[in-house]
């Protein structure tokens, strides 16, 4: 799928992007894509390139741009920086913090402890499908490690 096709995924069924005969309003979608890649600094030759040819960082930027376009109340970011280079990670982090600053709820799911410490206000650990602890980000990593692996020190949680 091209970049413009990707940029409309999830809102392709809206009236504003519908042409006649069940067709898509391609011009409008391309304009949307052009705006998104400009606002989020997605580096691509044009909106008709295959999205799969972008680097991981630019793909992630595109996704962020697409998902933030609608002003969501809640943003769920699942492993948003996995496989990205340092520059792209920086960008994603900044974006997520900006979203938080703009008053959106951000749920970050990550296997990177550093990332979690860097971005979170509250940290929840899960073990076997249950929340085993809730912590403040100044908690020591070994406490979190223990809670993640099912250990019982939940009383240290900051309520």
């Amino acid at each position, binding site marked *: 799928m091209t970049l413009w096709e990707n940029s409309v995924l999830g809102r392709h069924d809206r009236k504003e992007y519908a042409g006649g005969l069940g067709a898509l309003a391609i011009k409008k979608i391309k304009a949307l894509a052009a705006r998104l890649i400009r606002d989020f600094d997605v580096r691509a030759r044009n909106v008709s390139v*295959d999205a799969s040819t972008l680097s991981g960082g630019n793909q992630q930027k*595109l996704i962020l741009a697409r998902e933030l376009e609608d002003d969501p109340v809640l943003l769920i970011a699942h492993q948003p920086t996995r496989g990205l280079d340092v520059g792209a990670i920086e960008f994603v982090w900044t974006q997520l913090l900006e979203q938080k600053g703009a008053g959106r709820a951000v749920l970050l799911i990550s296997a990177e402890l550093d990332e979690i410490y860097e971005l979170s206000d509250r940290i929840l650990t899960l073990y076997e499908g249950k929340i085993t602890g809730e912590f403040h980000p100044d908690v020591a990593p070994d406490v979190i490690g223990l809670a993640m692996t099912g250990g019982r020190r939940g009383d240290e949680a900051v309520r």
Partner: protein
Amino acid sequence: MPLLDLGAAVAIGLRYFTIIYLTGLGGLFSERSGIVNIGLEGMMIIGTVMGAWGTLEYGPVAGLVIGAAGGLGLGLVHALATVTFRVDHIVSGVVINVVAVGLARFLAQTFFGQATQSDPSIPHFDKFDVPLLSQLPLGLGRAFEAMSPVVPAAFLLTIPILFVLNKTRFGLRLRSAGENPGRDPSRRCACSSASLRRRHDLGSVGGAGGGLPRDRGERALPRRPDAGTGIHRAGGSDPRQLEAGVVDARCSVVRIRSGGSAEAQRRAPVISVLPEQFIRMIPYVVTMIAIAGFVGRVQPPAAAGRVRRRGGSL
């Protein structure tokens, strides 16, 4: 005469079973390694012609091996296409079937001359009566009289195959390649093994296979040109999560039914309350029901049929 000659029905069932089972084992290996093999049909066809020629020239045992080699050859083409060149499995399989039909006629003309309309008669294995089983009452014993040694050989093949699949390093790699090729890309390996079935009801020859580890082989099991059976087999082997033994049971049930139907049609038109064509649908319907999970949920290997590629679109 009884309404349905049980012994004859079972005998026919067993004969079909051998063909289908061997092909099914071929399917088992390729599916387990994550390669969908629609080309089984073509591999059977080539194995038949090659096997018939080998038998004529060098005797039944050599025929078996040569037939297996024929299937193996096409299996290698499939492997080369799907593994090395990442051609879609289905496309490659379909093409192999197309090529096999042409190639089989071509080879038959080359081997046996212009008279391809009639099958050349071919020497076959000495038949034997299975001890004990041939004494069974109710006419059932007749099913085990004058049996080709290939039939029990196919049965016995289950044991080494289960062993290879579950107890050897090769088997483990094969299975892991099927579940997650990304983990082990170099070993989207596979087994090569082939087998064959020869022309016509007269002489039956089953097959055996030779492994070809490390090489990116595939597996093939050919048979006489009987449209649909190979493909059917590929279908039947889809319960590939099940162990070989279960596959064995399932396809023998399917086959005995349709074998029985062919026999019923020949011997006792009395029982055709149902038109014969509907009886012929039964194995397909049974397979569909089985696949649809009413009999038991079956899960193909996670990566079956997927061409491995890096990346992908967003």
